[in-house]
């Protein structure tokens, strides 16, 4: 019972981190039709800047906010400089965003040094709760709560606000949205920045969770993000949450019961979805 619960909390927490990365990816792909392989770089930059801000101010709240601001700034620069010139061309997008991913990763090493950096958990989130003989690690619960909170906020924006309505319409039919008088380029920019901020937040939350950060962490996590986008349905926000939780849980349980399969399980999940439901669990377009 205790074991199951812990595996579940562990899987959920990992799932939430993947969700924060995948949420941006799926919206960027769904709305802008852009394959952004640099997204993991924003995740890693979020992790590094949170650790940096935390060391500087000793405040985890400032660290998180600092990471989000970093994500916003980097998102703005990336969209304007890297993405805008290659709208509509997937091959160029793959090449240029992969290239930019490497640049972001190398820049981290230049700025913060090539070695792993330890990341602290703030004291009030460290440790665990003991309920009977069940031990629950606080920080994991914190990640799960933040993940659901972010999902709720964005779901509210998407469903209840005008800009959210326009984003959903744009995912379905970009051309039509423009003929209704909406400057889709601005919408693209906002969505890209929001996605970058979420990725950076994911990185910032990841840092204390794994205890160390390193420049390549972005790339490793981005692969999980892409798998989740495919499983959840490209462009579907709820789909990315569900798929991320699925991938997180599968990874957590497999790592315990069948460790040899713990890496392959995500690929297997994706393969099964692609065979039986190639559009993903949720369908956003159309």
């Amino acid at each position, binding site marked *: 019972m205790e074991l199951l619960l812990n595996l579940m909390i562990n899987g959920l927490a990992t799932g939430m981190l993947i969700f924060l990365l995948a949420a941006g990816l799926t919206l960027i792909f769904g709305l802008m039709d852009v394959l952004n392989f640099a997204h993991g770089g924003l995740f890693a930059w979020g992790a590094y800047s949170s650790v940096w801000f935390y060391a500087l101010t000793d405040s985890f709240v400032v660290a998180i906010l600092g990471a989000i601001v970093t994500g916003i700034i980097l998102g703005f620069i990336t969209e304007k400089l890297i993405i805008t010139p290659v709208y509509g061309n997937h091959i160029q997008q793959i090449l240029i965003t992969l290239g930019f991913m490497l640049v972001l990763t190398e820049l981290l090493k230049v700025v913060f040094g090539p070695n792993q950096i330890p990341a602290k958990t703030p004291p009030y989130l460290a440790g665990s709760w003991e309920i009977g003989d069940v031990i629950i690690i606080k920080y994991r619960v914190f990640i799960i709560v933040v993940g659901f909170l972010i999902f709720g906020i964005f779901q509210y924006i998407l469903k209840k606000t005008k800009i959210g309505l326009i984003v959903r319409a744009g995912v*379905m039919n970009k*051309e*039509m949205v*423009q*003929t209704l*008088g*909406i*400057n889709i380029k601005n919408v693209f920019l906002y969505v890209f920045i929001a996605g970058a901020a979420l990725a950076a937040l994911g990185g910032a939350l990841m840092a204390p969770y794994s205890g160390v950060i390193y420049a390549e962490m972005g790339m490793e996590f981005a692969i999980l993000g892409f798998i989740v986008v495919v499983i959840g349905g490209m462009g579907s926000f709820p789909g990315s949450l569900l798929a991320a939780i699925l991938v997180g849980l599968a990874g957590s349980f497999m790592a315990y019961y069948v460790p040899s399969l713990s890496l392959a399980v995500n690929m297997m999940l994706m393969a099964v979805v692609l065979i039986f439901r190639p559009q993903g669990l949720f369908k956003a377009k159309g």
Partner: protein
Amino acid sequence: MNTMLKVDGVHTHIGQYHILQGISFEAKEGEVSVLLGRNGAGKTTTLKTILGLTPASKGIVTFKGQDITKKPTHGIANTGIGYVPEDQGIFGALTVEENMKVAMRKEDEVTLAKQDYVLNLFPDLKKFWKKDGGHLSGGQKQMLAMARAFVGNSQLLLIDEPSKGLAPIVIEKVMEAIMDMKKHTTIVLVEQNFMMASRIGDTYTLLDDGKTVQSGLMQELIQDEQVKRKYLGIG
């Protein structure tokens, strides 16, 4: 009557293809101007070029005296041009209400009055207000597309083949609606159904192979058996 829209010697390239090779016509305020021509003549591309979706490579498009040839699509729409595409362009996973909302720049009294007007014109939309656009019938989608274009502050509506795929009785309804909307807005209509085109059109422009063949009053064309036979395969 004032000229609302003027398309003057327009050429359009899509990729390596030279699709429009000299299109000229005018739409006068308060009139229904019909674009005619066989399949592939360039009618849809002409509308898309006016909207900047497939921008003109040569020639000028003027709307209310303003050169809009080089404007981006959203800018052109915001000068007061609404679009009802051939495939209707309904946002399938949005409700009827949300489809309308996307088009409304603001929700002031004027816009809401316009909405009331179209909902009276198409009571079905009111009935299915909370239904997903993707679940509407073909005729209802057509009505939603027209209503949506109308509430978006349009002084000119570009409507592409509204009768396509609809049953005669529904075509009749759509036709009556267009004649009613004509009281409030100028219309450029692409229509293959000559019965419909001839009944609601004031003027016509005949396209063939990406070029304007001739323009004139619809009344004249109705008499012109030769042209009708040659370009429209009727008469």
